[in-house]
């Protein structure tokens, strides 16, 4: 556990190299010769690929080499003495390079002595600074040497070596091409002196080139290729075992043939077959040769296949690991939780455990938990004794006795309970706010519960989303999670320096309705609302005394803000008048908070929402820190939705009612537009339309039509929008920025507008027309996907079809986009993941190379900035001026 200062070994580095035949034999526990796995009784055959000495995978069977059972036996290598050497297919490229760069007779690098010396020195120098450059340099040396035709050392004539994928080499002598046998290749490689290899940037100590031609083949331990026993008792061998059996069989036959003195032809055949088996054992997707197949016809999954790709060893098992102490279930909302909390079902809390050290101070408490056991909540599932032995409380008869035996120094793995720190995550984990630390709140029912305000960072909704929960097991992990990853610490996003946690949808509507002009609350309502926020002070002076005390919503907000808070800013409902009269705004769209009182202005998207910079919430968090931010989000924001409940906010069809005059107006606008389009078309037909420079006539016409139609749609929207005032719920939501926009409302009450595919009017379909409902060659608005109807009235069949077409394009678009952007993100992440800020303020790679001398040129953390700016100078000046008055 934590705080044990034991001498532990840490891995300092990983060295790569090629195994030498001697090393392979030395590593091996036995030679494998027999191409059979089990005998008739089902016992592994000694000397076969399932030899017991290679390790054990069966429970209850001791390993013959190390004497351990399955859980402790690491597995042991065997080896196969190959009857004839074969080329290691993955090294073929390197062998080719070496054969070409060295002399076929004396084995020296085909460069004069001085140049070899120079290259060696260069390689040494590069090694220290840019190892990758050393290899590039080595390659260039090899390329240079490959061009030489006469050996500068022994004057021998050199021939071109042709390499045929995946493992055949030809030497093109005068008399024609001659195949190079692995034996010959190996001999040549053996002759290359160490220092010449160094000149090529290679390391002869860890990889002599002749080792790339195999004479001995290591046999992986059984633990690497376990037998699978099905319920039926049928045994199924691993693909690699199958491959080994094939390989051994041919090896055996080759050996026998050689011993019998069989004709060279037969031996060569078997030899190349052996080469094939060795090649496919390493990589079964080599170009140029058919993949080895299982009896069923499925290609075998051999060593390279295990490593490669998304589900391979590297990306699938090493860079991403599966974990214990985690849970996953559906999420649902709970606005009464704090943003820092997460609701955890009791069932989950009873399985996930937190190791707690027994101390004299918690001894009794721990005893009680142990007595309650694993089934009763809150209880405990395991006890770890100081000697490391684990006791599973499920199987303990007398828990009372165990509880009594509990002493300081024991560890109790108790159930999750309120206040524990856990990590909560929703995939895809696209940014760091996708995993945040929450405090547990154990609740009934079977879903994880979270506050709605933390939906934006997770990008969560409740249409069936599932989320993951992890329980940190060490004191360090918990401390780090609580101080760095807690939700409140993540309110400000490092992406743009603005809150990513904050109100959305109903919170915005609620904020607006509560704080808009004319919201009056009687004592009962006011008290009930402040109670929601957990406010415990007294009530302020009521704003209205007659008829009876009434308070405004603005007063309520003021009650929950800190008393020295000041804020000024435009609301979302701002009408963008020519000159802003600021706090005198007749629409209550200019928000002013003075000394913690909301003086004027209604709160909406630009003051309380998430993902908007320079809001009231943003300033508040920046000024007072994350604790205050959390208080605000847990207090004031709760009032917003509580008020919305009291108000009874709902949107019905009546919210979209417009008088018939508007309908007529819209129709008039549309028919005028239609006429205009008609004229355009006619003009084009007569050839009077002036094409835009660089465009064809058709393009120009299309563009003009689009312009006319979109203008008409806008005008129709305006006509409808004029009638729909702030009394309509839909308009309230759109104007305050809670959900949708005015365009959407237009689409519901006036016209839906142009449907488009690839940014153009819809034109695909039958020859000359999109749908059979239209005349040939009709390029009028209706025939090309303009929808005159609105959602409220309903779409005509053709219109509906056009709408579906555009909708489908959107879906396809999204599907394609996620794949593309996902890959880009992965590349970015892989390229930049090691960059960090060093103690001197520079940005460095893991190797210490400098990327930037000062992070972002000014050293400012975007998450701590004011929307990118390090300091809001205007605010500071305002503050100082405010202090002037005294």
């Amino acid at each position, binding site marked *: 556990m934590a705080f044990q200062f*034991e*001498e532990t070994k*840490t891995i*300092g*580095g*990983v*060295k*790569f190299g090629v195994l030498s035949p001697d090393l392979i034999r030395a590593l091996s526990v036995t030679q494998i010769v027999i191409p059979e796995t089990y005998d008739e009784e089902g016992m592994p055959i000694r000397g076969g690929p399932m030899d017991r000495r290679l390790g054990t995978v069966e429970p209850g069977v001791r390993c013959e080499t190390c004497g351990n059972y399955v859980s402790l036996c690491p597995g042991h290598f065997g080896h196969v003495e190959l009857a004839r050497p074969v080329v290691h297919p993955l090294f073929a490229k*390197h062998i080719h390079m070496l054969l070409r760069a060295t002399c076929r007779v004396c084995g020296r690098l085909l460069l004069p002595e001085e140049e070899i010396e120079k290259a060696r020195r260069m390689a040494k120098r590069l090694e220290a600074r840019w*190892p*990758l450059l050393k*290899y590039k340099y080595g390659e260039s040396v090899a390329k240079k040497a490959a061009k030489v035709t006469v050996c500068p050392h022994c004057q021998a004539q050199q021939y071109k070596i042709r390499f045929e994928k995946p493992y055949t080499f030809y030497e093109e002598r005068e008399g024609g091409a001659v195949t190079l046998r692995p034996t010959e290749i190996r001999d040549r490689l053996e002759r290359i002196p160490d220092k010449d290899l160094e000149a090529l940037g*290679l390391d002869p100590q*860890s*990889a002599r080139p002749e080792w*790339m031609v195999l004479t001995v083949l290591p046999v992986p331990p059984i633990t690497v290729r376990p037998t699978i026993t099905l319920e039926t008792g049928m045994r199924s061998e691993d693909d690699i075992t199958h491959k080994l059996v094939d390989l051994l069989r041919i090896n055996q036959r080759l050996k026998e043939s050689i011993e019998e003195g069989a004709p060279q032809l037969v031996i060569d055949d078997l030899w190349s077959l052996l080469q094939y088996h060795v090649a496919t054992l390493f990589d079964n997707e080599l170009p140029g040769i058919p993949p080895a197949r299982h009896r069923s016809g499925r290609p075998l999954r051999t060593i*390279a296949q295990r490593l*490669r*790709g998304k589900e*391979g060893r*590297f990306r699938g098992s*090493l*860079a991403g690991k599966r974990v214990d102490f985690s849970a996953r279930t559906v999420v649902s909302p709970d606005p009464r939780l704090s943003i820092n909390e997460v609701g955890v079902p009791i069932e989950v809390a009873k399985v996930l455990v937190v190791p707690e050290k027994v101390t004299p101070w918690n001894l009794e408490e721990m005893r009680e938990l142990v007595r309650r056991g694993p089934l009763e909540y809150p209880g405990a599932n395991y006890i770890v004794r100081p000697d490391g032995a684990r006791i599973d409380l499920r199987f303990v008869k007398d828990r009372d006795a165990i509880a009594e035996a509990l002493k300081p120094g024991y560890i109790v793995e108790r159930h999750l309970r309120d206040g524990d720190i856990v990590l909560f995550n929703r995939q895809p984990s*696209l*940014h760091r706010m996708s995993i945040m630390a929450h405090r547990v709140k154990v609740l009934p029912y079977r879903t994880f519960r979270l506050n709605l305000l933390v939906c934006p960072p997770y990008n969560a909704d409740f249409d069936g989303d599932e989320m993951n929960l992890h329980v940190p097991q060490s004191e360090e992990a918990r401390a*780090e999670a609580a101080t760095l990853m807690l939700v409140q610490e993540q309110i400000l996003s*490092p*992406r*743009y320096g603005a809150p990513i946690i904050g109100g959305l949808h109903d919170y915005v509507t609620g904020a607006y309705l509560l704080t808009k002009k004319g919201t009056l609350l009687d004592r009962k309502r006011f008290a009930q609302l402040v109670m929601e926020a957990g406010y415990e002070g007294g009530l302020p002076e009521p704003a209205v005394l007659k008829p009876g005390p009434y308070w405004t919503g603005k007063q309520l907000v003021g009650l929950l803000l800190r008393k020295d808070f000041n804020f000024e800013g435009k609301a979302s409902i701002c009408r963008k008048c020519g000159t802003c009269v600021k706090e005198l705004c007749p629409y209550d769209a200019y928000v002013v908070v003075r000394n913690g009182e909301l003086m004027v202005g209604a709160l909406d998207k630009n003051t309380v929402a998430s*993902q908007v910079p320079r809001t009231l919430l943003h300033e508040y968090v920046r000024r007072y820190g994350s604790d205050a931010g959390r208080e605000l989000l847990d207090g004031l924001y709760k009032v917003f939705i509580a008020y919305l409940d009291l108000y009874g906010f709902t949107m019905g069809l009546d919210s979209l009612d417009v008088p018939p005059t508007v309908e007529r107006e819209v129709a008039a606008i549309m028919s005028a537009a239609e006429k205009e389009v008609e004229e355009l078309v006619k003009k084009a037909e007569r050839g009077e339309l002036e094409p835009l420079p660089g465009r064809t006539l058709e393009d120009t016409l299309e563009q003009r039509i689009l312009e006319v139609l979109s203008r008409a749609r806008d005008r129709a929207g305006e006509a409808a929008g004029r009638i729909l005032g702030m009394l309509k719920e839909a308009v309230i939501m759109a104007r305050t920025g809670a959900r949708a926009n005015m365009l959407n409302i237009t689409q519901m009450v006036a016209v839906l507008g142009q449907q488009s595919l*690839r940014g153009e009017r819809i034109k695909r379909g039958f020859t000359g027309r999109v749908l059979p409902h239209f005349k040939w060659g009709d390029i009028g608005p209706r025939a090309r996907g303009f929808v005159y109807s609105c959602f409220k009235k309903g779409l005509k069949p053709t219109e509906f079809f056009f709408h579906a077409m555009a909708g489908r394009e959107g879906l396809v678009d999204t599907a394609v*986009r996620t794949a593309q952007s996902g890959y*880009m*993100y992965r590349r*970015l*992440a*892989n390229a*930049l*993941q*090691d*960059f*960090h*800020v060093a103690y001197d303020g520079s940005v460095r790679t*893991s190797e210490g190379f*400098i*990327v930037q001398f000062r*992070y*972002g*040129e000014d*050293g*400012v*953390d*975007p998450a*701590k*900035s004011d929307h990118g700016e*390090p*300091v809001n*100078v205007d605010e500071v*000046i305002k503050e*100082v001026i405010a202090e002037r008055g005294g």
Partner: protein
Amino acid sequence: MAEKVTVEVARALLEPYAHVLPERLAEEVVRKVVEAGLTVDEARKVVDRVVLEYMRSLVEPGEAVGMVAAQSIGEPSTQMTLRTFHFAGVRELNVTLGLPRLIEIVDARKTVATPIMEVYLEGEYARSREKALEVARELELTTIENVSRAITIDYVDYAIIIELDPEMLENRGVKPEDVVKALNRIKGKKGSVELDGLTVVFRTGLDDAVKLRRMYDRVRALRVRGVKGIKRAIVRYDEKLGEYKIITEGSNLVAALSIEGVDHRRTISNNIYEVAEVLGIEAARALIIREMKRVLDEQGLDVDIRHIMLVADAMTMTGRIRQVGRHGVAGEKPSVLARAAFEVTVKHLVDAAVRGEVDELKGVVENVIVGSRVVPLGTGMVKLMMLTEVGSGSASQTQK
């Protein structure tokens, strides 16, 4: 009332912090303090608070800024449209934007889908539309085909007959003599060119019909005027600058910069490689930042400039342009395991074996792979030596 601050006094107040505050911020303070008409004491207060607040907003050592940058660009990119084309301020021109363009930048593609140059003009040229048009004509590639009504082959005489279009000639600012001059460049020894009014007869002097056809194609695409690679040049009035500039479809910086009237200080292409070659790596870095920012802004995505700068710096830190990916930043990492975990796993492992490479486990993935408990970033960057037994003074130490 105390005296008001002047620019000089404000500067003097900031002097002690010259090495702390970024210049831009310091200048902003000076300007605003004077504008607000504060007294010296008040100005001092402002300066103190600004410095304090600035210090508070600094990044902490160990912060994994690279990962944060990758996330800050990767996360919003899922919300981008795939819609490729958008107008580049000019209705006539399309530019790739959105996700495809972002990927193009990050990939550091040598050829851009829609190359574009913004050619700024100097002096007279920037002020007069006529003069600007002149430069535009100089830029725009005009081929013989562009200025002729018909080009026909005379198989009898092995000649190519070009009928020039007076309107197009006028439009492109080309004289028939220019066409003749252009043809003279390629006519060879046996060929001859004759000009008769608006008809140019080019006797090729060839004797092979196949060669004639080839010559015909060559003549059609023959450059009469303009710059290679520039399909179109459009003169625009820049409202902000109050001057004319030219936007071109296709780019050729070297040629464009040498044309008279072109302001070589501001003219830029959107091809990162070209800019790196012609203007240098710093210009390329600036271009990467500008282009990425533009793509994100155009989509209404808010991303801090620092993240983009980090990506640009990663791409240009070696002095040449490296793509973000297998053949660049990610593929040139010194760690074998990190490379193997990214792409082309087996190749990296095999190469490492031959070279006897050592992975020193300095990076993040490497440590995840070997399963060490800490990753050398953030809180894991701290190396603390600690006595195991308090007061014993023995040398047994543990590293965290």
